[in-house]
Structures are given as structure tokens and as C-alpha cells.
């Protein structure tokens, strides 16, 4: 085997995904709330097996973008295609089928606080009709909790968990559906640096283990450096710059540079 092919085995940026199919496209999407023009002709593409980070200041519309993708908000203009389907044209049933293949990690975790961790994990599984019988349910819950290293927490309530644990449980709830695409809304914000790095590694592990594609929203530069195959910079509602971490870090443009300073 040639040395080069060993390098290819590593999760190297740009290399493998370059020829892979596109699983998610955001095409000239605009979204305003009254006079607040949050997204203006924003475009983005995500290829299979790739981690793309969307970088932007607080309030720049990152959460709005991700909510448009999952259909929680309707864009004013533009087209969003997920796994080959135009999101705007789907009816309820088709939308639910699509959402079963797209995991969404909420910025606020959004764990159901009246349910135990197990019931939190079972909720999407049952609602999407994806489990067949208690034995399979149990196995999937166990696997998902194991993936995030919290196998012992199944009977606890979210209120009994720490912030970092809650983030992991939210991730487990996303993973249990074995999604093709995962949308992470600021997975490391508000966590201590050590826990944040653990989450970063978890995101990498998940990507390699299940070959998922991920769109990650973040303004944590360590997270960006560790998980991004490609970085998209969102400024003033537009895609301002795009490239690998190294490419953008070397960019002299002041608006790009301020993120890497």
C-alpha cells in the first residue's frame, strides 16, 4: 500500500468528500422577521460524510438557518433540498419521514423534562415507528447511551443531569434514529473547555462510526478546528467566505480574521 493511501484513511478535510453526492443544499435562501433581514440569499451545500461548520456572530441567524432546514421556519425565498427532497413541497407525512433521517441537536437541548432519559430517547423512536418491540427498543436505547458514554443514566430525569450530560443525552436522542444528516446547533456553547472537547470528539466519532454528514453551528473556534472539514462564514445573512479551517485562518480579510484572532 502506498503511503498516500494511508493518509486517505484519516478523516482528512476536503479529500474524500470532494466527489461524494450532495445530501443537503441551501439555495439562495432569505428570511426576515419584519424589518430584521436575517438571511439574505444564503447558499450552502453539504456532501455525504462531510462535517461543515457554519461560523457566525451571535444573532447572525445561524439558528434561523438550521430551523429553516428542518422545516420549523419557512424561508421567504429560496430553496432547501434535503436528501433530494425540496422541503417546501412536502406534506406532513412526507416531512415526518424526512425528519426521521435528519437529527437535530437543539441549542437548548430541548430534553423533555417530565420524562426520564429513557423515555426521552424512546420518544422519537416510537413516534417515527422505528422500533419493533421492547427488546429492540431497549437495545437501541442502550446503544445510544453507550455511544455518548452515559449508559447508567437511563432512569434519571433531565433535571438530575449536569449541563454537559444533558448535551450528551440530547445527542443520544438524535443518534438513536441513526440519521443520515445531523444538524448541531452550538453543541459546545456554555460548556467547560474539557467537556466541550469531549463533545467535539464525540461528534467526530459519530461521523466516523455511522458515516453521517453534519452541519454544525458554532462560534467556538476550538470546536471548529477539531470537527470541521469545511467552514462557511455567515456575515450579514450571506455566505461571506468558505474554505478549510487553515484556508480561512490564513485569510487576511478583516471580517474573516476577527474570528480567528
Amino acid at each position, binding site marked *: 500500500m502506498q503511503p498516500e493511501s494511508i493518509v486517505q484513511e484519516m478523516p482528512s478535510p476536503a479529500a474524500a468528500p470532494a466527489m461524494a453526492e450532495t445530501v443537503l443544499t441551501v439555495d439562495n435562501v432569505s428570511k426576515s422577521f419584519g424589518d430584521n433581514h436575517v438571511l439574505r440569499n444564503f447558499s450552502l451545500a453539504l456532501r455525504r460524510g462531510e462535517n461543515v461548520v457554519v461560523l457566525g456572530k451571535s444573532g447572525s441567524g445561524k439558528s434561523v438557518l438550521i430551523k429553516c432546514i428542518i422545516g420549523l421556519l419557512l424561508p421567504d425565498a429560496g430553496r432547501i433540498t434535503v436528501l433530494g427532497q425540496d422541503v417546501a413541497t412536502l406534506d406532513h407525512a412526507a416531512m415526518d419521514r424526512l425528519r426521521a433521517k435528519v437529527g437535530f441537536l*437543539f441549542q437548548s437541548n430541548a430534553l423533555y423534562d417530565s420524562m426520564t432519559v429513557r423515555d426521552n430517547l424512546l420518544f*422519537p423512536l416510537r413516534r417515527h415507528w422505528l422500533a419493533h418491540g421492547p427488546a429492540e427498543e431497549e437495545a437501541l436505547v442502550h446503544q445510544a447511551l453507550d455511544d455518548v458514554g452515559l449508559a447508567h443514566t437511563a432512569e434519571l430525569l433531565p433535571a438530575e443531569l449536569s449541563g454537559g450530560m444533558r448535551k450528551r443525552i440530547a445527542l443520544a436522542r438524535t443518534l438513536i434514529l441513526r440519521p443520515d444528516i445531523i444538524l448541531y446547533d452550538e453543541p459546545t456553547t456554555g460548556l467547560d473547555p474539557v467537556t466541550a472537547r469531549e463533545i467535539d470528539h464525540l461528534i467526530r466519532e459519530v461521523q466516523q462510526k455511522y458515516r453521517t454528514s453534519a452541519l454544525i453551528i458554532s462560534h467556538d473556534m476550538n470546536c471548529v478546528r477539531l470537527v470541521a472539514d469545511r467552514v462557511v462564514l455567515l456575515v450579514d445573512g450571506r455566505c461571506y467566505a468558505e474554505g478549510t479551517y487553515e484556508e480561512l485562518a490564513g485569510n487576511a480579510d478583516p471580517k474573516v480574521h476577527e474570528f480567528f484572532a
Partner: protein
Amino acid sequence: MPNTALLAETGEITSFAGRFFREGFRPRYELAELLHQCYVVGYQSLPMVGITGFIMGMVLTLQSRPTMAQFGAESWIPVMVGLTIIREMGPIITALIFAGKIGSSIGAELGSMRVTEQIDAMEVSGTNPFKYLVATRVLATTLMLPLLTILADAIALYASFLGVNMKGTTTLALFTNNILSGLTFGDVLPAFVKTFFFGFAIGLIGCYKGYFSDKGTEGVGQAANSAVVVASLVIFLLDLVAVQITGLLGLN
């Protein structure tokens, strides 16, 4: 300005109710969640409803005794108290207690679910949150309040029997007979029917306030608070309408 806000809110609650009738009875049916909510809503209010029912019956009896005695009409106490409780006090007091207990808890629960994005999370988990959260709760309050009212009436009447028995003596059979002889169909039916409307209003307003609660923890408190205030007001308005309608139907 407050007038337009009031009108706007009335319109929004009405369209929320319209959505309940459009979406609430279509598949996928959330039966398990409906039963769970009936249990929660009914069971949570049992102690309060029982206690207020008992006190209501007892106090009404003891208060009316001196006046009735003045006219030598003590034997009319059971009929009078029975009519008061069944036609008016039972339904309205139970509904107000229910609004305070259940309306506020629904408002707070849905409000905090909205604020922490749990409602959005349900939506992306293959669930229609309106049907799963709102429709089940509104149906549960609509079905449970009439049952709770019947229970409160029964407890209040028993308390009234105890009150009558404190001085004079009567048997439970005689007391019951006495009340039944004074009751007509027109006393019972409208009182029973209006409790469904009270229950519906309490559930609907609690859900509306919570479902559209403002972001932030302050919004949750406001949702719970105004759920009770608005629901109580609506209960009185509905009661007024009910009186008019029963009058028109010749049942008064």
C-alpha cells in the same frame, strides 16, 4: 389601545379553538396521552374539589338556617340548598377551583415547553405538538370537569345533610327525598351541560397562553397567571350566557 388588544386576543383564541376542532379529531389519535391527561387533570384536582365542595354545602346550610327559621321554613332548607348547589354553586365554584389548579398548571407546563424548545423538538420527532399537547389537554379538561362537578355536588349535599343534622334530626333518606322532590329536569340538565363548556374554556385558554407564551422565564409565569385570570372571567361570561339560554328554552 387595550380594547384592540382584547379584540385581537379574542380572535386569536377563537381561531385556536377552530384549530382544535379541525385538527383534534383527525388521526393520528393520541389516545394514550388523552387517558394520561384525564388521569392527571382529574386526580390532581380531587382533594381541592372535595374540600371546597364539603365547605360549600356546610356553609350554605348553616348560613341559611337563621333566616329560614325566622319564617318557620326550616324544612325547606334541603330543597333550597340543593337547588343552589346543583344549579349554580357547584358548577361555578368547581370550575373556578379547576381553573386555578389545572388552568395555571397547563399554562406553565406548555409555556416552559415552548421556551425550552421542547415543542419544536416534538415537531421534529414526528409528532404534531398541537394534537399531542393541546388537543389531549383540552379534551381532558372538557371531560373531567363535569365529573368533578358531580362529585363536588354530591359531597356538598352530604355536607349539607350533616349541617341540617347538627340541630334538627333527619335521616339521609328523608333528606335525599326532600331534595329530589324539589328538583326538575330543567334544574339538572343545563347545569350539567354548562360544565362541559367551562372545562373546554379552561383547557383551551390554558393551552393557548402556554403554547404562545413569550420567550423567557417571565413569559412562563405570565402564561400561568393570565390563563387563570382569563379563564375565570370567561367562566362567568359563559355562566351568564347559560342563564339566558336556559331562560329562552323555558327551563328556568
